[in-house]
């Protein structure tokens, strides 16, 4: 059920009317989501869900207590407020306490699309059918996922701060595998507007990759020049926002820490052509107008998203400019400590690209590999941002500017820092759903073993 600004305000007021703590915050997150899954060339599961999380945070005198509920009835809210106050009173004083925010000015970000909020199983069906028909006709096995979500979020506190946001997101992805199990291709896209996702085109791309990656030849692990498709770049840069922490750098426990003390802001660390921003206003990867959400999750481990960034207005920020580290994110506690302004990472990561296509990157490669995407990336060494993970859904050998044939998958042990240091060329930047990044050609990427997986 769609929420309005007034309904969110009214719910917050009901909470505040029952609040006895010096400060109280309310975070609301309501969703209406639908999805269709398909696999082994059949539709499998499909459903819709209406859900709601209301996080009530009672705060005062250095203590805070959070309670999450999903019942909007007045009696239920009253109980929840009382419980949050008791949780607050039971907590010890937080030595890193920051006061509640006064009223903020949140930016308007257009991220709600009717084509998404109105899409149901019948609307999702055409994309799913296109993938299934194509796979059945070409002796491929298709699996995939089509999803639409409408989301309403609000935050409010007793000091008069209030924000409301409506947004939508949609996604379609498909994996096609050849009958003999030696070829696999993937293509997918997420976007706020369901009608902008070319499901049939994505299915064709996945099928082509599956067929062209079949019967790969054996290639030994080692260091290779690699052409990373935008999705592969996006996979490798996935945890960059958490690495860009000023506090972790100042405390000496991050790649951006200086040995002996201090951080590396101002140092030229990456290739000259690397410029990376976060931009909540980019219509391809819009952010919400503020930092944080109602949180929650399984076992409560979703936590209270936002921490000491929670409630700060979203803003566009340049983190790396022409290879130089310009900024690191600063939460409100750390800002007080180092006497600087808080600086959140908000919205999607946007990397400046070049002008050509991935094909142009291939054409300029003497010998190297072309990669579709990665899988199961984990941090091996947080200090060097060394990661490990595997290639997936298509790896090809490039010789003298041409793709000469598919090769096996690999495990890599390397760092996105090296990707950005050893970069030789970029294609134009495109959206992968959560970031805007170019395809990249980079030298000496380290593959440590072969993977038999397809």
């Amino acid at each position: 059920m769609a929420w309005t600004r007034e309904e969110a305000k009214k719910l917050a007021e009901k909470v505040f009317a029952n609040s006895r703590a010096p400060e109280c915050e309310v975070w609301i997150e309501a969703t209406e989501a639908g999805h269709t899954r398909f696999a082994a060339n059949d539709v499998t599961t499909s459903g819709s869900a209406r859900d709601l999380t209301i996080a009530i945070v009672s705060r005062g005198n250095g203590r805070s207590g959070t309670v999450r509920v999903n019942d909007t009835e007045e009696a239920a809210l009253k109980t929840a407020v009382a419980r949050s106050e008791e949780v607050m009173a039971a907590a010890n004083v937080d030595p890193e306490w920051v006061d509640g925010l006064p009223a903020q000015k949140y930016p308007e970000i257009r991220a709600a699309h009717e084509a998404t909020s109105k899409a149901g199983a019948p609307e999702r069906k055409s994309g799913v059918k296109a993938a299934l028909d194509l796979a059945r006709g070409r002796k491929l096995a298709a699996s995939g996922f089509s999803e639409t979500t409408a989301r309403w979020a609000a935050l409010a506190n007793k000091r008069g701060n209030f924000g409301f946001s409506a947004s939508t997101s949609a996604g379609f992805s498909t994996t096609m595998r050849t009958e003999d199990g030696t070829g696999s291709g993937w293509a997918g896209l997420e976007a706020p507007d369901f009608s902008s996702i070319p499901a049939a085109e994505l299915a064709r791309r996945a099928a082509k990759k599956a067929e062209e990656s079949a019967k790969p030849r054996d290639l030994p692990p080692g260091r290779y020049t690699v052409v990373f498709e935008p999705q592969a770049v996006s996979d490798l840069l996935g945890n960059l926002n958490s690495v860009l922490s000023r506090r972790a750098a100042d405390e000496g426990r991050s790649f951006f820490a200086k040995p002996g003390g201090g951080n590396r802001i101002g140092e030229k660390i990456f290739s000259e052509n690397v410029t990376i921003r976060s931009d909540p206003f980019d219509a391809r990867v819009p952010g919400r107008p503020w930092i944080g959400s109602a949180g929650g999750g399984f076992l409560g481990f979703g936590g209270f998203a936002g921490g000491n960034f929670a409630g700060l207005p979203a803003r566009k920020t340049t983190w790396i400019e022409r290879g130089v580290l310009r900024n690191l994110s600063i939460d409100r506690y750390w800002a007080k400590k180092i006497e600087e302004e808080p600086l959140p990472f908000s919205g999607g990561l946007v990397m400046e690209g070049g002008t050509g296509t991935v094909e142009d990157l291939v054409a300029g490669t003497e010998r190297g590999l072309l990669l579709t995407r990665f899988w199961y990336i984990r941090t091996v060494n947080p200090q060097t941002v060394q990661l490990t993970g595997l290639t997936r859904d298509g790896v090809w050998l490039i010789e003298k500017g041409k793709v000469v044939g598919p090769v096996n998958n690999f495990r890599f042990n390397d760092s996105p820092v090296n990707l950005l240091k050893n970069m030789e060329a970029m294609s134009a930047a495109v959206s992968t759903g959560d970031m805007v990044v170019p395809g990249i050609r980079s030298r000496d990427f380290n593959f440590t073993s072969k993977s038999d997986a397809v």
Partner: protein
Amino acid sequence: MTPSRRDFLIGCGAGAAAWATLGLLPGEFLVSRVDAAELSPQMRKELAAIALDTAKKLGATYADIRINRYRSQVVTMRSQADRSTGKLNHVPSVSDGETYGFGVRALAGGAWGFAASNAVNREEVTRAAKEAVAIAKANASLRREPIRLASAGSYQDTYSTPIAKDPFSVPIGEKLELLRRAGEEAKKNAGVFLATGFIAQRVEHRWFASTDGSFIEQHVYQIAPEITATAVEQGKKQKSRTYRPHSVTAGYEAVERADLVTNARRIAEEAVNHLKAPSVTAGKKDLVLLPTHLGLTIHESIGHSTELDRALGFEANYAGTSFLTTDKLGKFRVGSEIVNFNGDRVRKESLSTCGYDDDGVKTRQFPIIKDGIFVGYQTIRDQAHLIGQSESMGCCYADSYASVPFQRMPNVWLAPGKSATTLADLVSGVDDGILIDGRGSYSIDQQRYNFQFGGDAFWEIKGGKVGPMIADVAYQSRTTDFWSACDGIGGEALWENVGLNADGKGQPGQINAMSHGCAPARFRQINVLRTE
């Protein structure tokens, strides 16, 4: 060790002013829980009748409804010196919550449909039942063959995790105080930069009714305490060591027996020694893996590869498929003859243990690997016939009322060695090897062949004896090579019920918790990397 009454009162006393604001005495809770409108059994039955009748009238051949309530609480503490004053700060975070809702599943026209909502009332249940059938019908023409369900039986039953002490009855202040003392203990070691800890607890109140005539009510309690110490060499390196008492289905007794404070001292020392330890020399080595480490290796290599939905390609678009294809069932050798794995959802305290799965199937134990041969998949009702079986192994689960139930991993555990093998026996047979504990970086490919795993504590083994700590260790192997290289498994006395809290799978993503019990085991000539 539990905090003394005196310590607890000191902890509360500091908050007297905050309690006074509420007009209460310290520690006095008037609201014992966020108890929003618990449904009466009659009301639940009425809502179930609405859902199942509506679905049937619209043409569903099968339908079920889950009306579930989840209560969770997470108490965390970070202990770290203030940058300016050097004073030891203990930074708390407490959250508590209770959410509930329902999900209706319907099989119509041979396809599945599902609809869920957090608003539990007659109108919304009616709407959702109609929508579930409409979704099924909308997709039915895309199916080449109708979905078939293995029989589940019909049960009117209840199940409750046996608990000695309700974790929700233990005051939050007592939990914070325990974590504060553990953090303080870890920080007594000057080499420790920060210590973190949490106690997470959850109870799922699941209520299930189906057109098979089942009405099943279950209360499943899960609890997970944990503490971590991190040592840092400014701008150069850092090492974290975690003490993770096995997360289990049990009450607060699991925290009380865990002795967090004494173990905080131990992990602090190990984190600091790890930071100073020399790097490993890469090459083939024998590994002796302790349960807290081996549990996750089991999860990734055996747990996921023996899921039938993966083998059939149902998860190909995200989690992946499996090298254990259906033609291998009953004949393929995965490991050496001493390797035996079972799946179950019945073993005491294991995280996936419950009475019935989300298909309404009674839970059980079943063999997965027998004498090294692959003999059984994890299955649910709509898969069994696809491999010629007539019953489900009871592995269906949804992580929320709003999530579609699907095949999830049960407890998958390694049977102990037959003789009373000790850790010393395993180590004494190693000339050049490594003893590994804890979890580090874990990564495995989408068909579960190639993996690279690290730990958070490593000791050199030379000439049959455990030596000093070493660092920067990861090992790479293939699942079948690795388990075929297993030549020693500890005896029953060393078997530990290792729990895993948050395994992700599916689209939309869902979380699941299960246990991978095991005793220490030895693996010969595994490829070790230096990760520095």
